[in-house]
């Protein structure tokens, strides 16, 4: 085991390389660029022996990953914001084709105007593509989640692509220490990639030709069933990883001081990490408040949210918005609670366009929610 002090992007690249994908295809976009550059350095040093395809667009990056995965290889890519949006069609394709592509997405604002800071509208707008979606809050979690994602994606009961999200700059460009296990540990944990289907000259099949409604209906149901199975497998795989590496990042939510809480804050990504400081201070001030950081948005942790809804009032901070409705996490939390709880749920939109969200802001939002002085869905710190 070694300690690596480096940025989220470079630690993600380290994890990806240690997972030994046979093919990496990627296209640079700020703020993912340093991740791709790190992979290029591994190639130059001979530490990565797979194929590194520098494609001419993110769309082609995903297509090349699809082709490589369909030919039987473990594959990895990374992107951000507009790059992720350009991939949109192929994100659906990878999931429907049941190809276990693993991808890091650096959560960045969508233009216009050009803005390279963080919010989560890029990945949120891809939530219906069939990809499993993780949201990380530290560089250690990025490392562990990337490794675990290969295991999950390639698991015979899943066989789906996985997206690991990390906030632009707050994680992608911020150095933090992460414990890196020996290569042997990763090798033993992941094992050799076994393709569950592939284009094979010894067993020639046609993949993706015209499919009638009855069969297609089954394809969609099978995807849904795999997502539901993933809810059990994600913690299981994390437990196995803990046995190997000592680190556990694996529940669908990370619970922080929720015992006895009468209010629970729900948030994702870097705001989730910042929220811990806010919770500490609010508890010191006598508030009975805890934190549940949502790590997995798809599959959605419905059962866990229902449990929280039986215990406490919920406060949700969204760094995203489904325009014309509300914050997506807030909306989905309320949908999960429907008919099971009559607790109060309060939603805040915060940090869009990369606007800073400090622990003081989080405390302020929590206080407003607890005092009942906030609107049903409030734009926090919006100057008119």
């Amino acid at each position, binding site marked *: 085991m070694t300690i690596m002090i480096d940025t989220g992007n470079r630690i993600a690249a380290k994890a990806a390389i240690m997972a030994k994908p*046979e*093919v990496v*295809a990627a296209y640079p976009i700020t703020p993912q660029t340093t991740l791709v550059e790190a992979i290029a350095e591994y190639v130059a040093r001979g530490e990565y022996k*797979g*194929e590194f*395809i*520098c*494609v*001419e*667009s993110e*769309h*082609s*990056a995903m*297509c*090349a*990953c*699809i*082709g*490589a*995965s*369909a*030919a*039987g*290889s473990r*594959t990895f890519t990374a992107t951000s914001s507009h790059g992720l949006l350009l991939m949109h*069609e*192929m994100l659906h*394709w990878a999931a429907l084709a049941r190809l276990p592509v693993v991808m890091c997405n650096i959560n960045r604002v969508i233009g216009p105007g050009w803005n390279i800071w963080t919010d989560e509208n890029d990945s949120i707008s891809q939530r219906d593509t069939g990809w499993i979606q993780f949201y990380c809050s530290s560089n250690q979690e990025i490392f562990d989640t990337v490794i675990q994602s290969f295991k999950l994606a390639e698991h015979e009961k899943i066989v789906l692509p996985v997206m690991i999200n990390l906030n632009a700059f707050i994680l992608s460009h911020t150095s933090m220490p992460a414990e890196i296990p020996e290569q042997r540990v990763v090798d033993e944990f992941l094992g050799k990639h076994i393709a569950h289907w592939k*284009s*094979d*000259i010894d*067993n*020639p*099949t*046609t*993949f*993706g*030709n*015209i*499919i*009638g409604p009855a*069969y297609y209906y089954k394809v969609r149901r099978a995807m849904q069933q795999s997502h539901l199975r993933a809810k059990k497998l994600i913690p299981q795989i994390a437990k196995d990883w803990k046995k190997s590496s000592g680190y556990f990042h694996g529940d669908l939510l990370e619970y922080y001081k929720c015992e006895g809480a009468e209010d629970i804050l729900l948030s994702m990504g870097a705001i989730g990490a910042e929220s811990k400081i806010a919770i500490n201070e609010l508890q010191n001030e006598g508030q009975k408040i805890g934190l549940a950081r949502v790590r997995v948005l798809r599959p959605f942790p419905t059962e866990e949210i229902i449990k929280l809804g039986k215990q406490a009032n919920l406060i949700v901070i969204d760094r995203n918005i489904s325009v014309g409705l509300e914050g997506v996490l807030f909306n989905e939390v309320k949908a999960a609670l429907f008919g099971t709880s009559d607790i109060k749920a309060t939603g805040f939109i915060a940090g869009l366009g990369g606007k800073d969200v400090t622990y003081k802001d989080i405390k302020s939002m929590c206080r407003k929610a607890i005092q009942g002085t906030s609107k049903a869905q409030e734009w926090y710190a919006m100057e008119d």
Partner: protein
Amino acid sequence: MMRLKDFPVDECLLQGNAACPGCPATIGLRLVLKALGKKTIMVVPACCTSVIESLYPHTSFDIPVMNIAFEAAAAGASGVEASLRQQGRTDITVVAWAGDGGTYDIGLQALSGALERGTNFIYICYNNQIYSNTGIQRSGATPYAAWTTTTVGGKNELRKEMGDIILAHHIPYAAQTCISYPEDVFSKVTKAKNIKGPKYIEILAPCPPGWRFSMDKTVEMGRMAVDSGAWALWECENDKMIFNGKSKLILEKKIQRKPVEDWIKYQGRFGHLFRPQRDEKRLKAIEEYVDSLWDRYRKCYLGK
């Protein structure tokens, strides 16, 4: 050059496929797959071939086929090729098989990228000069004055010269051929199979419903295109350009090309140039365009 009677008897395109009667794509597929053999993985974007494959869970192919999105053939093939290289399976040929819409237009960026990266694959464009799978709409390959459902009075623009775009990539092998010349197709595909790096072959594929001619005339329609000079047979190996068959004779002025009119008068898509009265202006423009094409070929490849 291997003679037709000596072609392999094995068929990788099976009977009972879902192509239209008289389909040139199936003629091309039979020839291409006879040349490539069973150690081939084919990547197919949206095009008529995605229909010809038949309905899941059936298939009309006896080789592995991977369908991919419309604009994605060359990028998808790049991934397949990289994977096979990692597996040490360099004995398998990766071929992308796409229509002219998927090549000239929506798939051009991915194709250019794959060629520039030196991807070891064969990209074959079967060119029927229209979006045929969607029901006959104009593409960048549609010739001037041709009717399509989106150029109702005839196309106002000239076709794109895809060959020039490909040659600008200076890949090891590029060729143009036509389904009416099976030995030419077979020879070019075989040659491409044995060259490392990116290879591009374009096959003219006269489409009976798209061009509006009788389904028993597919092969003849291709021959007439070459005779008229509206389509040229050539191959370019390591930047050395050779014209083949009648195209060579036309280039060297050993024969006169036939009037394009002799070809298009049999196609309903040009019917508006002949009925109710002759459209002399556009007929003249068509001949002048083909003349200018050959003048340019002669300047580039004969130096005169």
